[in-house]
């Protein structure tokens, strides 16, 4: 009888029952809009499929509780929001971009952002989260203009002791990544507009 109950419990997905399911708010802070100003450019964004489902079960240390970080579901809306704040004319492709579409809508650059890795540096007194992404910038003829990688990290103490602590720490790591990505992208586009790149 006991084994049947245990099998039923574990078979139903014990990992979902036990541990931390960490969903970030998925919103940028007010400082982001204050720090990042728009540049005059018409930029389209394409988000590869599967990004929104990106999650990590990296629990940091062997002794830690199981943790599931739902990164994609927060990253994608925050990425869209960062482009709303970062460029004057922002378009999102919900179909595969083509050179014809780029020409028709007079889009200067196509940007593709992908999550590459996520690391949890949980330690005895706190937690550090690293989000690695790669950004591709394409010309209107869809030839590669530039490719760069970004790391955004957030490290804080006593994260798990606070209500919403791990969630806000994850949000902060994503925002750090997007800050760096957008700043770097803006520099690239300004250089390209000036013809100095």
């Amino acid at each position, binding site marked *: 009888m*006991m084994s049947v109950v245990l099998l039923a419990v574990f078979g139903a997905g014990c990992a979902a029952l036990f541990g931390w399911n960490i969903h970030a708010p998925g919103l940028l802070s007010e400082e982001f809009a204050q720090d990042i100003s728009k540049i005059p450019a018409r930029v389209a964004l394409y988000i590869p499929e599967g990004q929104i489902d990106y999650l990590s079960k990296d629990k940091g240390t062997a002794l830690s509780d199981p943790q599931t970080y739902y990164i994609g579901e927060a990253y994608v809306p925050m990425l869209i929001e960062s482009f709303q704040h970062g460029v004057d004319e922002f378009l999102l492709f919900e179909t595969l971009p083509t050179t014809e579409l780029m020409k028709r809508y007079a889009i200067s650059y196509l940007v593709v952002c992908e999550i590459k890795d996520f690391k949890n540096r949980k330690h005895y007194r706190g937690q550090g989260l690293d989000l690695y992404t790669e950004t591709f910038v394409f010309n209107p003829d869809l030839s590669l203009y530039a490719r760069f990688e970004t790391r955004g990290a957030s*490290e804080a103490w006593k994260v798990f002791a606070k209500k919403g602590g791990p969630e806000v720490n994850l949000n*902060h790591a994503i925002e750090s990544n997007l800050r760096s990505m957008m700043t770097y992208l803006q520099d690239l586009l300004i250089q390209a507009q000036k013809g100095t790149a």
Partner: protein
Amino acid sequence: MRKRRELLRMIVCLFWMTGILHFPLKANEVIPETQSEVIVREHPQTGDPYIVIKAQGDEGREDLHFGQPQKYSRPDYEMLRSSVKPGDVAYDGPVSSRKKIYILAASLATLGTVSGVAGAALFPAAAGTTASGSGAGLAAGVAVTGAATAAASIALNQEIPDDYVREQESRLLEMQTDFYQRYVAPHQISPVESNRSQ
């Protein structure tokens, strides 16, 4: 005669600009039908509109439809300061609740299935709170529970820095290069280097 021509040209230009007399300009390149349409969507949480290009007659990407909007307040990262106590900074976002762990552990304990080290290893957090496990189980529970760890660390070390840390960096991996830079320049040996190698 010349004045008449100039006047006629001006009138034609004026009509063309105002759209009354509109003749198509010969395009440099014919743009084929793209079978696309432009719609406006609203950001799921902020409500700010943005432009979407999608295939004509298609619903668009399902994974980018965020469903019902969730109105959370923007996060305040002051919460991450170690001196800020839980509840000092308002937060209405999602929370990972561990109540279900306790419920599960309690239900298992009631059934008499949680006992000794095995039970604590499977449910360390629950073992520490329900006190149904053995002494070894309780110790394991305190060691791995996030909240308990953080609380213990305050007593152990008072020199925890107050501020939280943000790190960000971007690194260029590849830049647009032409044929010469990609295939010829890397193989060219400067005269100085060639002399040295000899």
